């Protein structure tokens, strides 16, 4: 560990070297920026390839997106460099920006592949598949779907209903919804989290689910 001044974080040697290079002047900084940029591109390519099957982003488009992710991550990293406190290795902190850029860009890209997806369409017939309900149990399935539909209508706010329907019923990826509605991931997750909790409580209160399982 290399101590800086009294108020500065204590960094591991490799992280201290990164910070020193990126806050230097002239050629040292240029070399540090180039080295970091190279790493960010490698991480972006690896991450986009890892998600290739679900995103369908491949080939030249993948390479182009990787460079965009690396460039945007680089800007964010330099902008926030003075907030790095050494709680992790510098590279781990920096790679996080790339991974988040990949998620964000793939969220926007979703709409190119699915331009006609309607957020508010409520195809309740799909619900048994979403919940893994056995299609063989027709009567009970229909009963359960109606109960969930009632819970959605009677207990959720318009906002919660819209997001729950988009994500759970229509299976729109959360980051695609974030991109489309201009919300942040936490806001969407929290709304759906609250919606799931309310629906569950409704189903317990009406005898469809076992109260003893509450809170799990």
């Amino acid at each position, binding site marked *: 560990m290399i101590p800086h001044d009294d108020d500065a974080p204590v960094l591991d040697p490799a992280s201290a070297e990164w910070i020193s290079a990126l806050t230097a002047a002239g050629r040292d900084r240029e070399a540090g920026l180039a080295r970091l940029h190279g790493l960010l591109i490698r991480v972006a390519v690896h991450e986009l390839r890892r998600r290739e099957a679900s995103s369908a982003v491949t080939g030249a488009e993948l390479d182009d997106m990787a460079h965009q992710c690396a460039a945007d991550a680089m800007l964010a990293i330099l902008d926030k460099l003075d907030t790095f406190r050494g709680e992790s290795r510098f590279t781990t902190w920096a790679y996080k920006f*790339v*991974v988040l850029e990949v998620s964000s860009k793939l969220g926007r890209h979703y709409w190119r592949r699915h331009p006609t997806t309607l957020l508010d369409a409520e195809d309740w017939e799909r619900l048994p598949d979403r919940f893994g309900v*056995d299609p063989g149990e027709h009567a009970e399935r229909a009963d359960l779907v109606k109960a969930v539909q009632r819970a959605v209508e009677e207990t959720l706010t318009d906002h919660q209903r819209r997001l729950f329907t988009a994500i759970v019923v229509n299976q729109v990826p959360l980051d695609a919804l974030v991109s489309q509605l201009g919300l942040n*991931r*936490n806001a969407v*997750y929290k709304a759906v989290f609250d919606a799931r*909790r309310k629906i569950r409580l409704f189903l317990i209160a009406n005898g469809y*689910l076992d109260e003893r399982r509450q809170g799990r």
Partner: protein
Amino acid sequence: MNHREQLERVLATDPADVGCEQAIALLHMYADMIATDKDAAREYPGVAAHLAACGPCGEDFQGLLEAVTAGA
């Protein structure tokens, strides 16, 4: 698992779940701990609960962990 149990599983929410914002804020620390065989879930149980429940944050965590362990 019958259909009610499956539905229960889909609707389950963990009160310990810290949400996306806090999980992402701590993700680099969490990933470094996992990469160095430290008990990250014990140190940050709310993050562990969130990563188990939130698909997108779980995906980000897996990507970050791979980048870190691959030494990029």
